[in-house]
């Protein structure tokens, strides 16, 4: 089966071929396969060098110091480490956390876990564009609030929260601020010198790096304190134990360096492709945007195709286009997206929505094919629907 055009770059990205080449160097018997913790021989030294180079590359993209980067197995673990690590460290200080209703499950589920352990969590609502209200945030703050966790870019609708302002509010109240930046870093400028953020989760596989590796930025000045969540050997300044996966880390480093150099041109190109697609789709009646293009990262489009079953549309598109109805999920049954219902859509409307995301390997030709196919299949489904 010839593969369809991939338009699901928010779910995951392929590894850039140049990044895969870098990874390859750290694998086989003829490569630098050593354990970075092996201090007694050159295999270990070379591996350690690769790890530290990558640390600089990852730090570089967000303007952090290399020693502020802690390797993890992905943004899910980074979020867990940040949220559970900070609340555990400050358990005597308070047991209240503020987050947002449209966060990724990798933030919400740790919060639910905290609730089971006696914590209180405030889930801020969002407006129809997906943005939180800073006044509501202010009002939610209590004397026992120990952490605010707000994502930078939403993984379903691409909306960018104003984390500079959120951070300022957190700072003003002396509360630690964590940002899930899995979907922003590498796509839009992120500068921890400008953002008053204490902890930031980074993912590799959303930025053309390998899956299974991520990082947590942990500010040094002033130092963000947290309790490690995986113990055993004291790697990563004691914050995250476990053998470092050299090829994965080197891959993430290379991917971040590449993202940094491509961002200026890619962000324009992707915005153009997205606009082109939307221009075509807007010709159809009753197709609307979820969220707001104004606050959206380039390349991202979430549309509500009114009165047109989302699953059928996706299935009709399958031979030509690979897209999704929301975040990648673990169950067989299609659940309406809680992100879209938070914007005010009904369950049915949410189910009739598509997440389309273009990326580094999407061409203008792909977009033309996609637009044609989308229009055709929407019309075809509507043509046999009793609702039209």
């Amino acid at each position, binding site marked *: 089966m010839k593969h369809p055009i991939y338009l699901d770059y928010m779910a995951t990205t392929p590894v850039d071929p140049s990044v895969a080449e870098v990874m390859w160097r750290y694998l086989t018997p003829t490569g630098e396969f050593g354990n970075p913790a092996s201090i007694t021989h050159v295999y270990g030294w070379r591996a350690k060098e690769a790890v530290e180079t990558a640390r600089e590359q990852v730090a570089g993209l967000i303007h952090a110091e290399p020693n502020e980067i802690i390797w993890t197995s992905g943004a899910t673990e980074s979020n867990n480490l940040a949220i559970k690590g900070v609340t555990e460290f400050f358990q005597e200080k308070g047991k209240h956390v503020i987050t947002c209703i449209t966060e990724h499950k990798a933030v919400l589920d740790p919060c639910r876990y905290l609730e089971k352990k006696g914590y209180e969590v405030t889930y801020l609502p969002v407006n129809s564009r997906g943005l939180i209200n800073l006044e509501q945030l202010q009002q939610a703050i209590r004397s026992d609030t120990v952490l605010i966790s707000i994502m930078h870019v939403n993984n379903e609708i691409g909306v960018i929260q104003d984390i500079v302002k959120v951070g300022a509010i957190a700072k003003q109240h002396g509360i630690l601020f964590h940002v899930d930046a899995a979907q922003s870093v590498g796509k839009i400028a992120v500068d921890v010198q400008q953002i008053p953020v204490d902890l930031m989760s980074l993912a590799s596989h959303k930025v053309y790096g390998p899956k299974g590796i991520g990082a947590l930025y942990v500010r040094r000045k002033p130092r963000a304190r947290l309790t490690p969540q995986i113990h055993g050997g004291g790697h990563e300044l004691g914050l995250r134990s476990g053998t470092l996966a050299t090829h994965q880390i080197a891959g993430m480093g290379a991917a971040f360096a590449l993202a940094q150099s491509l961002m200026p041109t890619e962000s324009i190109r992707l915005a153009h492709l997205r606009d082109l697609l939307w221009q075509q789709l807007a010709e159809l009646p009753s197709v609307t945007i979820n969220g707001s293009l104004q606050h959206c990262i380039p390349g991202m489009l979430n549309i509500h195709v009114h009165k047109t*079953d989302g699953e059928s549309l996706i*299935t009709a598109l399958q031979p030509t286009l690979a897209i999704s109805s929301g975040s990648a999920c673990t169950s067989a049954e299609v659940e309406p997206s809680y992100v879209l219902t938070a914007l005010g859509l009904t369950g049915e409307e949410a189910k009739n929505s598509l997440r389309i995301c273009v990326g580094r390997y999407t061409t203008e030709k792909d977009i033309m094919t996609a637009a044609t196919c989308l229009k055709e299949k929407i019309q075809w489904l509507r043509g046999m629907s009793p609702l039209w």
Partner: protein
Amino acid sequence: MYNDAILKHFHEPSHQGPLPQASMIARVGSEMDGRILEMAITVEQDAIVTARFKAHGCPATIASAEWVATYLEGRSLQEAQNFQSAQLMASLQLPGHKHYCALMAEDLVKQLTTYDGEES
């Protein structure tokens, strides 16, 4: 990821569309539920000549509509009356969480074939 039987019926239906000369039309489901099946048939001498569906819903719903339309054409109303959801479930190998499509179809066929004295 649907099986080939469902996908084939979904991707290449040949019985969708309006049927202006319909003898009977039946409809099950609702927009609120996220699925509607509508079937129109023409009947000649107790035999179903043509069946055309309209459907809104998941791929299994549409595939079921196509399957039922094909099934109906050429059968007598009596025969069609005996239609049971299990036949459709088996033929399309509907997964458990899609059995409701077959149940909808059974309702639909019942409505169509249970002549209530009035043509709709």
